[in-house]
């Protein structure tokens, strides 16, 4: 949404954005199968995917913890991940909670794998992982994550303690660049309004967090 807003401000054509469940951000007319048909043909360039657990090989667990099927903690399910992760070229993983229980050495259930064996059709996959503390890149040839930058207020020792898997990093990693004033204004204005259309409660919570930033520090 930010990319679209920035491009449109510059007079360029922005990307098309599809949000599941949104009326405004839905340009499909063939039901919920159409997104997957588009992806299968390579018409979807990028996709954001979260995970209950994410491991060092970028395997994603959206099903639950413990031994399947009697998972003591059950999450909703795998949604379209076991397809989209294979066929969308640029999948950006996100998980705000950056803890050893979220970023694990090995997931309890593979909803969808980070990498595939040679010979398996795989035109897509993960390129990055963004958390509340840091940004990682993903190299499928290793396979593994490399720390790209650490968000302000956090350090390498903390990231290592909070991450359940091993990752590569520079001795002195970069700090994540905060958004410039123009970008921040877009994020808190137009992008906020667009998110609120589909996720009103999430947007309202985010507004409370923005207006009372100190409540997080306690």
């Amino acid at each position, binding site marked *: 949404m930010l990319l679209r807003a920035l491009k449109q401000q510059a007079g360029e054509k922005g990307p098309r954005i599809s949000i599941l*469940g949104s*009326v405004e951000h839905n340009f*499909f*007319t*063939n*039901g*919920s*199968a*159409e997104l*997957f048909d588009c992806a*299968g043909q390579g018409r979807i360039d990028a996709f954001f995917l979260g995970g209950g657990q994410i491991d060092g090989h970028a395997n994603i667990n*959206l*099903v*639950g913890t413990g031994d*399947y*099927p*009697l*998972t*003591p903690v*059950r*999450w*909703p*399910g*795998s*949604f*379209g*991940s*076991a*397809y*989209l*992760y*294979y*066929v969308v070229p640029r999948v950006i993983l996100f998980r705000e909670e950056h803890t050893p229980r979220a970023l694990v050495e090995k997931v309890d*259930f*593979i*909803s*969808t*794998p980070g990498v*595939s*064996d040679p*010979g*398996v*059709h795989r035109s897509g996959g993960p390129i990055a992982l963004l958390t509340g503390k840091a940004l990682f890149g993903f190299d499928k040839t290793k396979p593994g994550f490399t720390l790209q930058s650490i968000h302000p207020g956090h350090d390498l020792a903390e990231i290592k303690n909070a991450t359940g898997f091993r990752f590569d990093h520079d001795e002195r990693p970069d700090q994540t660049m905060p958004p410039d004033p123009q970008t921040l204004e877009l994020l808190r204005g137009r992008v906020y309004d667009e998110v609120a259309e589909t*996720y*009103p*409660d*999430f947007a309202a919570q985010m507004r409370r967090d923005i207006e009372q930033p100190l409540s997080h520090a306690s």
Partner: protein
Amino acid sequence: MSDLRALAAYVEPGIRLALPVDYAGVSMAMTGPIIARNTRDLDLVCVPTGGLQVDQLIGAGLVRSVETSAVSLGEAGGAPRFNAAVKDGIIALKDATCPAIHAGLMAAQKGSPFMPMRGLIGSDLLRHRSDWRVIDNPMADGGDPVVLIPAIKPDVTLFHAPMADRFGNVWIGRRRELAAMAYASATTLVTVERIVDENLLADEMSAAGVLPALYVTEVALAPKGAWPYGLWGEYPTDTAEILRYARAARSAEGFADYMAGSKTQMEPA
């Protein structure tokens, strides 16, 4: 035109029942009448995910198995009775991914035994699905494994739509998954906000968004029939009510109280 009880009579014990995703048109009005009949051993197919209705049918003890890509209450969080039933091993799970459900329905629609699809290989979803098969693509020179999804043929499909005409044609707009469900199913039950006099197939503008009566077994009137879900083009989701359910249904007792309360609400003496 039928009433809700007549529709509920089609939902017999042990049938495979297909239900739509929360934003496509869920016939919440039918949840009460189905539970009232206490129809057990249902095998649910969520197209491609389930929510409130699925959680309530599970909570009422009517469900034997669930084939789904996910069950959740959206912004209201996890589906409490589904989660509890999984933990206790009360329901059999057929965890899927959205396009696999669509592929299975499409195979049924075409009268084909299966549909091949990409993805899935290396996932634990595939490992736990003995009904899915992996073959080497016979059109390639060698290798190229691909997954086969067997046809999904529901006994009954149930959904809610804005309108039908008096000939049984149903307006589904661009929610084509509703048509896909109906094509694949032996019986299709539809509740609607209103019944119109004019033939929806007579106007080319509306005809393309119509599920023809050919695929529709019964239509019943149920104003606000998706509530507390919203219905596209008609009314928004009542998020406060879904949150109220999510809180109540954390325990079996809270669930029973909620359902008893909404029964009084829906069926005034």
